[in-house]
């Protein structure tokens, strides 16, 4: 999927443009070194910046606003730490394990050929989904780094307000290594358009489609969150004491930054500044809009007042659900997907959670897990050309292939199942391990005092 080009894009384009015809004819296609289009490169640089914005400050504040002020810094710290430690891991070995060929284990994980980013230079290129279109490999690495960094940070919300920082400091890098990287490899690794027949990851080979990470990021983190909430246990005073968001202002701000950043997340996943990226972009605006309205409608039907937190949560659920579908659905399809995700996640965060009684502090499972599942399976439906979707490009045929909603939904469901199992089992094992080593949970006094003081020796506000 990568290619070493010996010259910079622009010179090559100009050179080829200006080249005397005879020479151009003589140079048949293979002689032309691939170059990155500057427009694509510009877009991927920006998309990376946008996804970084999602984690810190976006997700940090979205989550932080929802906890009580005595735990504000603990959540911010956990998210910032996740970003920092994963960024380093990604360079050391994460990128290599996720995005190189893994030999015998290739169905599940990559190899160490590019550990320490060995061999990557400013001239290295990564192929996009269009044959012959490349972006600088460093841009691809950085873009994928931001995905790897936000996913474990999402889990934090499920165990917030009671897990020890030490436990997370150990768990997050382990989880990225043993859960995120393999799932990313299974879903996303392939040979690229120029080698589409090469061995790919397990779920990719199965034909599952996931435009920007519905399974890899959201179901993965959502399920890990549920497992975490169950293993760490309920907060002291859960269901007895007032546990209300300490600043919905920060939650709105965080959600707004998440939304904006998500445009880079989804439309950047096109890897090109193309019409397809523009489709993903508009879908990433209208699906959450629909989902916000869906949640508000569900609230009104449930005889509650329409709430800002509801609209925000709905919008995030819509963003989650449209993630796997962004480049496949029509805008109308995306709106419908959003509406449904908004209403279903409302049910999950209220009825379902209450019935099962787990304490998923910030509804990571209810929004990312359930929203991710709605999106992953819904993608099988809205991607259908019969419903205005783009269908799936068949690289062998060089055209969009035949599409059967039923069979695609089946494939999608299988991919969902594999992700759930991998994440649930992997997360459970790692959490048990961490519990042994450092203990997962703050003691009662610390939890009462708040993790900000007990874990970090600081307070968020001094007014």
């Amino acid at each position, binding site marked *: 999927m990568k290619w070493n080009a010996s010259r910079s894009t622009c010179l090559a384009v100009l050179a080829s443009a200006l080249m005397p015809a005879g020479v151009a004819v003589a140079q048949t296609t293979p002689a032309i070194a691939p170059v990155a289009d500057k427009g694509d490169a510009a877009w991927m640089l920006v998309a990376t910046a946008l996804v970084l914005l999602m984690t810190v400050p976006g997700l940090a504040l979205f989550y932080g606003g929802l906890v009580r002020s005595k735990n504000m810094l603990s959540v911010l710290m956990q998210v910032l730490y996740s970003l920092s430690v994963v960024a380093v891991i990604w360079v050391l070995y994460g990128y290599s394990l996720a995005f190189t060929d893994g030999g015998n284990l290739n169905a599940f994980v990559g190899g160490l050929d590019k550990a320490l980013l060995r061999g990557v230079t400013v001239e290295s290129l990564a192929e996009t989904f269009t044959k012959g279109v490349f972006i600088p490999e460093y841009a691809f690495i950085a873009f994928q780094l931001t995905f790897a960094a936000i996913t474990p940070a999402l889990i934090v919300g499920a165990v917030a307000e009671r897990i020890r920082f030490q436990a997370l400091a150990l768990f997050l890098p382990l989880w990225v290594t043993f859960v995120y990287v393999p799932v990313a490899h299974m879903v996303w690794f392939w040979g690229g358009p120029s080698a589409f027949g090469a061995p790919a990851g397990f779920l990719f080979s199965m034909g599952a489609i996931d435009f920007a990470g519905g399974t890899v990021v959201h179901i993965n983190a959502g399920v890990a969150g549920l497992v975490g909430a169950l293993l760490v246990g309920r907060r002291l005073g859960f269901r007895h004491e007032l546990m209300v968001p300490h600043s919905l202002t920060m939650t709105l701000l965080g959600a707004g930054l998440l939304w904006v950043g998500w445009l880079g997340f989804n439309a950047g996943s096109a890897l090109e500044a193309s019409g397809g990226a523009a489709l993903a972009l508009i879908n990433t605006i209208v699906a959450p809009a629909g989902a916000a309205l869906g949640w508000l409608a569900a609230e009104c039907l449930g005889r509650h*007042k329409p709430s800002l937190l509801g609209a925000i949560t709905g919008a995030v659920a819509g963003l989650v659900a449209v993630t796997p579908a962004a480049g496949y659905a029509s805008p109308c399809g995306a709106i419908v997907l959003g509406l449904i995700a908004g209403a279903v996640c409302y049910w999950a*965060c209220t009825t379902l959670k209450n019935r099962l009684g787990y304490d998923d502090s910030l509804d990571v499972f209810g929004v990312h897990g359930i929203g991710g599942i709605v999106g992953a399976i819904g993608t099988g439906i809205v991607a259908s050309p019969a419903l205005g979707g783009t269908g799936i490009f068949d690289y062998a045929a060089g055209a969009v292939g035949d599409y059967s909603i039923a069979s695609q939904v089946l494939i999608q469901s299988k991919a969902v199942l594999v992700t759930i199992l991998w994440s649930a089992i992997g997360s459970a094992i790692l959490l048990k391990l961490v519990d042994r080593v450092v203990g997962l949970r703050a003691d009662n006094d610390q939890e009462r005092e708040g993790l900000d003081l007990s874990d970090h020796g600081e307070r968020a506000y001094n007014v």
Partner: protein
Amino acid sequence: MKLVTAIIKHHRLDAVRAALVELDVSGMTVTEVSGYGRQKGHTETYRGAEYKVDFVPKLKIEIATREELADQIIAAITASARTGQIGDGKILVTPIEQAIRIRTGETGEDAL
């Protein structure tokens, strides 16, 4: 000397202060408090979780005064803080044994 303590609604503060200034009350101290009483609180809902909040924000005003003025102060507060709706609040009178002005060290009624 007496300490007159009144619990009132926030939006009556300006009126009460004006009424007290009319009486030549030279000072008062105000605290944000939460009140529980006949006035009902409200319900908040966050992602479907309902919380009944029974406490209502109120202001507490404390005026240290010489005894003679106490009744006038009570009357003035009663008149200016009243809206006629449940939750208008209370006035309590308690004894003060001594008062000192920190700046000057004056004591007794001179300190007020």
